[in-house]
C-alpha cells in the first residue's frame, strides 16, 4: 500500500468542509480555501502547501488512506497528493527537470492495453508529457483533464508545470502535448516565460518528439492565442512532428478543447515506444479511447441506447423578477451531453451560474405534467425531453415559460387558471346505473367493457393536460377559453358509457357554449405539437363532429361548417362570398363595413395594384355580397358530378 508523501490544495476551493470533515488532523477550511495544517508538515507552515512540503514521516501511514478519501470526496477536485518515491502506484515517468512542479494525476491504473490490433503501440514506454502554461489556472485545469482522458488511450500521462523546466529535457519525451494560455498582449503566461526564453536561446533538437498544442486566448485581443502559436512554430522549427494541428480556443475554451483532446490523444497514442507513428491504427485507437470495445451489457438485460453526443449551445432563458416587475433574457453558453434533459440543463445553470433561476422541477417517478416549458417554440415537459431532440450543436436554445398562464417567476407559471376551470367543468364520473349495478351503499355504479375502457384512454392519452392547453395559439389571447386540455376531459367523460345521461348532456353543453371547443381558433396549432398534440387534435375534431350532429349545425361555427361544405358540394370549390353572407349575417357584414375590412378588400389592397374592378365586381353584380370574391357563384370544376357523388355517398346532410 503506497503512502502519501505530499498533499496540497489548488485554487478554486469552494470551502465545502468535506476534507475537514474527513481528516481534520490534516485539513482546515478557512473563509476562502482549505489549508494543510502546520502540525503535519515538514516546513511547519499553515497554507495550501503550494510549495509541496512533505508530510512528516510519523503521519504518513496513518493519514494516507484518509487523504486519498478526502481527495476523492472533493467536489471540485483540487486536493492533490503525491506518493512516496518508489511506491507501487506512483508515476514513474516524471520528467527529469520537473520533480518539484509535477502534479501527479496518473494514479489510476493504466487502462488495460488491447492485446489485438493495438499491440504494436501498447507495448513499452507509454509516457505522455503534458505541459501547461497558465496564468489563471484554466490551462492547468485542462492539462489535468487531458491527463485523465489520456489514461483511456493506454497512455501514462504526467502533467508538467512549465515553470522551472529545463528545455534540454524536452527531447527525452516522445509524446508531448502543450496547453497554454496567452497573457496580456500576446505574452507568455508567467510560469512559461522563462522556459520560452530558454528554449529560444538554446534551440534544443526535437526530431524524435511528436507534439500538439491547445492554445487558449481571447479573440477580443489582437494577438489571439499567440503563446500557443509561438510554441507550435518553435517545436516545428526544432524538428518536432506536429501530430494534430494546433487548436485555438476562445474564452469559452472547453468545447474546442473537447474537440482537440480526443483526436490529439488518439493520434499521439499511436506513437510507439520507438517514436514511430502508426497511422493505420488510428481508427482502432479512436474506438479504444471511446470505450467502444467494452462489453455493453452486464447482467441479464440489455441497456437502452444512450446518446452521448456533447452539444455546445447558447441558451437564452426568460427571466422575470416579480418584485422589480422586470423581464428579459439571460444568455449563457453551455456545453452539455445531448442526452441530458432540459431540466438537467436548467439545474446546471442554477447550480453553476445563477442560483436564483426559478423553474418547476420534476419528480423521480416519471414525467411530471407541471414541468412544462416552451423550448424553441415547442411546448415540452422539461424533465423528460432530451436536449438533443430540441436543438443541434452550435444552435441557440430559447427557453420561456409556457404561454397562457400567469408567470410567477422566471419559468414558473401558475396553473390556477387550469385548476379553477377544471373544478367548474366537473369532468369526473357521475354514473347512471348500468345493467342494474349498484354499490353496497345503493349508489349507482356504471360498467364498461375493456374495449370501451381502452377507447376512452386513447381519447385523452396525453402526458399533461395543462401543457395541451398551452399548445393552443388561442389559449393565451382568449381568457374565456377553457382550453383544449379541459375540452379533452369533457369529451372523454361524455363518451364514457358509465356516465349518467344528465351528466353527458351537461358535458355537451359545456363543450358547445362560449369557452368550449368552438373557441379554439385553429386546431392545427395544437396538432403539430408531437404525439400529444396530434392526439388532442383528433379528439377535438371528433368532439366537434359530435356536437354538430347534436346541435344541428347551429351557431356561427355550425353555419360555417354547413355552408362551407355545401359550397364545395355545389361547385367543387369554396365560395367565400356566400360564406361571408351566410355565416356572418347582416350584422357581421355591417361590422366588416364599419371596420374597413370590406373597403380594404374592394380597393385592391390585397392585389398590389391589380385591377380594382375585380374588387368592385363583388358589389356591382347583383346579388353579390361584399367581399373579395367577384363571382356570386363559382364555376363548377370539371367532372363536378363526381364531387356531388362523394358527398352523397358519405354525408347527405350537406
Amino acid at each position, binding site marked *: 500500500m503506497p503512502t502519501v508523501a505530499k498533499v496540497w490544495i489548488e485554487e478554486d476551493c469552494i470551502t465545502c468542509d468535506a476534507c475537514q470533515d474527513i481528516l481534520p488532523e490534516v485539513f482546515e477550511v478557512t473563509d476562502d480555501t482549505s489549508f494543510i495544517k502546520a502540525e503535519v508538515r515538514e516546513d511547519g507552515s499553515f497554507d495550501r502547501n503550494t510549495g509541496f512540503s512533505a508530510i512528516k514521516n510519523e503521519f504518513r501511514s496513518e493519514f494516507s488512506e484518509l487523504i486519498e478519501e478526502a481527495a476523492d470526496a472533493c467536489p471540485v477536485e483540487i486536493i492533490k497528493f503525491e506518493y512516496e518515491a518508489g511506491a507501487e502506484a506512483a508515476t514513474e515517468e516524471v520528467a527529469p527537470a520537473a520533480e518539484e512542479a509535477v502534479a501527479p494525476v496518473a494514479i489510476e491504473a493504466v487502462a488495460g492495453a488491447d492485446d489485438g490490433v493495438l499491440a504494436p503501440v501498447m507495448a513499452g514506454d507509454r509516457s505522455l508529457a503534458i505541459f501547461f502554461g497558465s496564468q489563471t489556472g484554466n490551462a492547468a485545469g485542462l492539462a489535468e483533464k487531458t491527463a485523465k482522458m489520456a489514461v483511456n488511450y493506454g497512455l501514462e500521462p504526467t502533467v508538467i508545470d512549465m515553470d522551472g523546466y529545463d528545455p534540454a529535457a524536452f527531447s527525452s519525451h516522445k509524446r508531448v502535448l502543450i496547453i497554454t494560455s496567452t497573457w496580456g498582449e500576446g505574452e507568455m503566461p508567467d510560469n512559461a516565460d522563462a522556459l520560452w526564453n530558454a528554449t529560444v536561446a538554446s534551440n534544443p533538437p526535437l526530431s524524435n518528439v511528436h507534439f500538439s498544442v491547445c492554445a487558449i486566448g481571447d479573440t477580443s485581443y489582437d494577438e489571439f492565442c499567440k503563446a500557443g502559436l509561438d510554441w507550435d512554430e518553435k517545436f516545428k522549427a526544432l524538428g518536432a512532428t506536429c501530430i494534430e494541428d494546433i487548436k485555438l480556443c476562445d474564452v469559452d475554451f472547453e468545447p474546442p478543447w473537447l474537440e482537440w483532446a480526443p483526436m490529439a490523444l488518439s493520434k499521439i497514442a499511436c506513437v510507439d515506444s520507438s517514436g514511430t507513428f502508426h497511422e493505420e491504427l488510428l481508427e482502432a485507437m479512436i474506438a479504444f479511447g471511446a470505450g467502444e470495445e467494452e462489453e455493453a451489457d452486464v447482467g441479464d438485460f440489455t441497456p437502452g441506447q444512450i446518446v452521448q453526443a456533447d452539444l455546445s449551445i447558447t441558451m437564452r432563458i426568460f427571466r422575470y423578477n416579480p418584485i422589480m416587475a422586470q423581464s428579459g433574457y439571460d444568455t449563457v453558453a453551455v456545453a452539455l451531453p445531448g442526452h441530458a434533459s432540459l431540466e438537467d440543463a436548467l439545474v446546471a445553470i442554477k447550480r453553476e451560474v445563477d442560483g436564483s433561476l426559478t423553474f418547476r422541477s420534476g419528480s423521480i417517478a416519471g414525467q411530471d405534467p407541471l414541468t412544462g416549458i416552451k423550448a424553441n*417554440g*415547442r411546448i415540452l415537459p422539461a424533465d423528460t425531453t432530451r436536449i438533443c431532440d430540441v436543438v443541434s450543436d452550435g444552435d441557440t436554445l430559447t427557453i420561456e415559460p409556457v404561454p397562457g398562464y400567469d408567470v410567477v417567476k422566471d419559468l414558473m407559471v401558475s396553473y390556477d387558471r387550469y385548476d379553477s376551470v377544471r373544478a367548474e367543468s366537473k369532468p369526473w364520473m357521475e354514473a347512471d346505473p348500468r345493467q342494474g349495478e349498484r354499490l353496497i351503499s345503493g349508489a349507482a355504479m356504471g360498467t364498461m367493457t375493456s374495449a370501451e375502457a381502452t377507447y376512452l384512454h386513447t381519447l385523452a392519452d396525453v402526458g399533461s393536460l395543462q401543457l395541451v392547453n398551452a399548445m393552443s*395559439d*388561442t389559449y393565451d*389571447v*382568449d381568457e374565456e377559453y377553457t382550453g383544449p386540455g379541459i375540452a379533452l376531459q369533457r369529451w372523454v367523460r361524455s363518451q364514457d358509457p358509465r356516465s349518467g345521461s344528465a351528466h353527458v348532456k351537461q358535458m355537451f353543453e359545456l363543450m358547445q357554449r362560449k369557452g368550449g371547443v368552438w*373557441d*379554439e*381558433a*385553429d*386546431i*392545427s*396549432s395544437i396538432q*403539430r405539437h408531437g404525439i400529444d398534440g396530434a392526439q388532442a387534435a383528433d379528439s377535438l*375534431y371528433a368532439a*366537434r*363532429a359530435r356536437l354538430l350532429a347534436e346541435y344541428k*349545425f347551429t*351557431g*356561427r*361555427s355550425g*353555419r*360555417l*361548417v*354547413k355552408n*362551407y*361544405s355545401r359550397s*364545395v358540394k355545389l361547385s*367543387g*370549390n*369554396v365560395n*367565400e362570398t356566400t*360564406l361571408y353572407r351566410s*355565416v356572418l349575417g347582416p350584422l357581421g357584414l355591417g361590422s366588416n363595413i364599419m*371596420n*374597413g*375590412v370590406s373597403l*380594404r378588400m374592394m380597393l385592391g*389592397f*390585397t*392585389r*398590389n*395594384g*391589380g385591377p380594382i374592378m*375585380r374588387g368592385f365586381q363583388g358589389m356591382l353584380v347583383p346579388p353579390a355580397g361584399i367581399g*373579395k*370574391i367577384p363571382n356570386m357563384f*363559382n364555376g363548377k*370544376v*370539371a367532372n*363536378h358530378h*363526381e*364531387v356531388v*357523388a*362523394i358527398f352523397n*355517398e*358519405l*354525408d347527405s*346532410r*350537406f
Partner: protein
Amino acid sequence: MVKYSYYPGNVARQSSYEVEDTIQPLCKTLGIELFEIVGYNSDGGNIIKQGNKDLQLTLNARNIALAEKNGHHIITACASAQGILHEALETFRNDPIALANANTVLSKTCGITAKVDEITTSHLLHVLVDEIGLDKVEDAVINPLNMDVACYYGPHMQRAGACGGDDAWNPNYMEKLIMALGGRPVEYKSKTSSVGNPSLLSLGDSVMKMTARVLNDAKKAGAQIIVSACTQSHSNLDSYQGKAGRVANKDTNIPAVNLTEIIAFALGHFPDRFAQLKTRALLIGS
C-alpha cells in the same frame, strides 16, 4: 424543366387571384412547368373535417388520384393546403383501412383510386430551396427587393415531413429566399403562430388578437412588409389588419403580400405593382 401537378388551394382562383397572377410567370422564369390537376376540388380547409373527417379525406384522395394520373408530384403555394394534403397522404400511408375506405368511394363515384405510394406534395417555398436552388433564383432576380421583410409561415405546414428540409419549429427557408431576392429578412418570434384563419368567420376577437400578434411582432422587429406563405392566412393579415389592430389595440399597419407575389416582383414581373408596393411600404411601413 421541373414538372409538377399544381394544386391552387381554396382561394388562389377565387378571392386571391393575385396568387394565380404571379405563380404562373414566376414558375416559367424558374423552369417549373405546372400541370393542371383537371377537375381538382377543395381540400376541405380543415372545416369539412369538423363535420365529417372521412369526407375531407376522400376529397383529398380524389385530388391525389387525379395528380397521380398526371404523373407528377404536387406543388401548391398555400401552407394550409400543403398541411392538409400532407396530412391526408400520411394518414393513407399509415392507415390502410382509411385508404381502402376512401378508394372504395372513389372507385364507385369517380372510377379512380389513389395509390399514394410514390406521390409527394410540396409547398413552392420548399421546391425553390431544395430543388431549384437559391443560386438559380438569385441569378434570375431583376428587381431586388431591397426591403426589410418579415416572413410568415403559419402553423399548418410546420410539422416534420411537411416542410421539406426546413426546421419545423425554427424555419428559415423563406428568410434565405428573401435574401436571394435581394431583401433583408427580419426575425420575429410569432412567424409560425396561427392567425386563426379557419375560424375567421366564426370567431371574433380572439382571431383578431391572434392576427394582431403576428403583425405587431413583425412591425416591432422593423419589417416594412410581411410576406405570407399561406394564401388563406393572408386574408387575415391583409384585409383584417385594421380591425385586428383596433380589437387588440396594437399597431398592425403594414403591407401584407403573398409569397408568390414578392418572388414574381423580384424576378421582374408586374413592375407596376411592385412600384406600388414599394410606395406603400415607404408610406406605411415602419
